[in-house]
């Protein structure tokens, strides 16, 4: 089985992000970057698939040199080799999907795993676009997976429940929390990852379909107000919730 897993290098959700001078990018100073958390489920599932069927797992990332850190994390978890599709430009989701598809197409993967969304831009569309460019089927938001022969049975998370779907290889699968428990990179894995290859390739040139015009922080939260500290405050609270907050 030839398995690919696409990973992106994103700001840690726990860091406080500042907007840069140009108002179109975040200011990377002091920001810790990590592997996209949804991609960790993808890496885990890719490794499990290899453990079951044999074969090879290749991790692919589109980005600048910093993305190598995330590729190395995937290698330390057990992925066999890494490919960096190198670019210093900020691409939109279509550009990223095109770059990925171009590389994936050349190598004829049976399954491509990736997170259901990247926690930096949250477009939640790269998997679907990639499958379209590749001519593969696509299963998104997978929380359970079973592969037998050419057949893939998956459970998808949908509003208020689950949907069971069936598809055929080759397929792009986007992974959702609940699919598995991603393993830690073991200390031996970290040492072994040093010896694994990260291939650098230029990306296919694309033009962005959307352009970032401006980034804005959400409005600062208004400070809270204490109406009172005992039951006597209830009528006033109800009144304010009704008239001011308009929630009841």
């Amino acid at each position, binding site marked *: 089985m030839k398995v690919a897993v696409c990973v992106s290098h994103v700001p840690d959700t726990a860091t406080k992000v500042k907007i840069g001078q140009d108002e179109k990018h975040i200011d990377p100073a002091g920001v810790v970057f990590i592997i996209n958390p949804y991609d960790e489920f993808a890496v885990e599932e890719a490794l499990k698939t290899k453990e079951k069927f044999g074969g090879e797992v290749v991790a692919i990332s589109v980005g600048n040199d910093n993305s190598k850190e995330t590729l190395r994390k995937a290698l*330390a978890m057990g992925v066999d080799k890494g490919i960096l599709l190198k670019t210093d430009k900020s691409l939109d989701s279509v550009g990223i999907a095109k770059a990925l598809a171009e590389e994936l197409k050349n190598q004829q993967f049976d399954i491509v795993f990736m997170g259901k969304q990247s926690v930096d831009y949250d477009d939640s569309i790269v998997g679907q676009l990639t499958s379209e460019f590749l001519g593969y089927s696509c299963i998104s938001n997978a929380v359970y997976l079973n592969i037998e022969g050419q057949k893939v049975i998956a459970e998808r998370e949908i509003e208020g429940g689950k949907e069971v779907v069936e598809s055929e290889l080759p397929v792009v699968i986007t992974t959702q929390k609940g699919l598995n428990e991603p393993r*830690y*990179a*073991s*200390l*031996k894995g*970290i*040492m072994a990852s040093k010896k694994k290859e990260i291939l650098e390739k230029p990306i296919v040139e694309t033009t962005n379909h959307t352009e970032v015009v401006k980034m804005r922080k959400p409005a600062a939260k208004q400070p809270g107000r204490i109406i009172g500290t005992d039951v006597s405050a209830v009528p006033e609270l109800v009144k304010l919730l009704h008239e001011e907050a308009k929630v009841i």
Partner: protein
Amino acid sequence: MHKFSGVDYYNIDSLLSEDELMIRDTVRDFVSAEIIPVIEKHNREGSFPIQVISKMGELGLFGTTLPQKYNCAELNNVSYGLVLQELERGDSGIRSFVSVQSSLVMYPIFTFGSEEQKDFWLPRLATGEKIGCFGLTEPDFGSNPGGMITKAQKVDGGYLLNGAKMWITNGTIANLAVVWAKLDGVVKGFLVEKGFKGFTAPEMKGKLSLRASVTSELIFDNVFIPDKNLLPKTTGLKNALMCLNQARFGIAWGVVGAMMACYDSALNYSKSRIQFSKPIAAYQMTQEKLVFMLTEITKAQLLNYQMGRLKDKGILKHTQVSMAKRNNCEKALEIAHIAREILGANGIIDEYPVMRHAANLEAVKTYEGTHEMHTLIIGEDITGFAAFD
């Protein structure tokens, strides 16, 4: 919840290699996810979180510096130190478990064991399938282990072991005890397996420190030890002290983790706790406390860093390890006490980690050579006069 992101005022991270940082961060994440959420419960109950042993084994946290041949990660000593530092940010008891397994059980088997002993025990100890303990201290011989009365006597096909050990970390849960006993007056190491007739390991109860760690007595009543279970290359007490030297190195690193946890907790608390309509962090006396903590953490980090590099070069002296163990344990305990003060009443409740660390560090300051004994070891080194024999 606030995510712990380390304490590094002097950009010491820039001295560490990419591998060292990756290892440190992996263990940091592991501790945040697997240890911190369960530790207060275990500390309250006085139980060791058994379920983390196999997870630590999978991660490769046991015997990290030993060869890959034995299923170990073969890391350098700085990495080993960083692993223990992160573990002790979780709890000194967890770090103690790993110190004992790695430095006091796997190290002596690797260093003084036969090929057969190494091949059998090391891979099993590396995964955590087998748990080890180290029996040196006796009820009447703590700082002075040379006086031990536990005795082995040669018999046909092996040895008969008699005596008792006390204060033994992991004793009750161990499958294997590395026990030091006198054979014709010479201290030798023996591998005593769980289930050997006449060997019992009752747990010691009532500890107010290291509650999430098992501490036991080891009792040997005419225990028959087959010939193959003698550590063949042990020739005296100095071999046991070599093990302690490995473990002390790890403790010096470990307590920096406890320091960081206390500092982090106190710093955050002081910024959000309002008294007299200002955060307590805005008062000079609180700031002085925080600055003291951070300065001592930074000094300890640099001491450890250089100690680690010297060990990796193979030129570290045991007296230098004594200095780091002595200084860092004392400062960690001071920091924990000050953090507790900053938290006021909240400092004594286990919703915050500081009281647990403070209590733990009392034991950590005593075991593996007390503060006083390390003073005397360094004192002898610099003056040439031994204050003890």
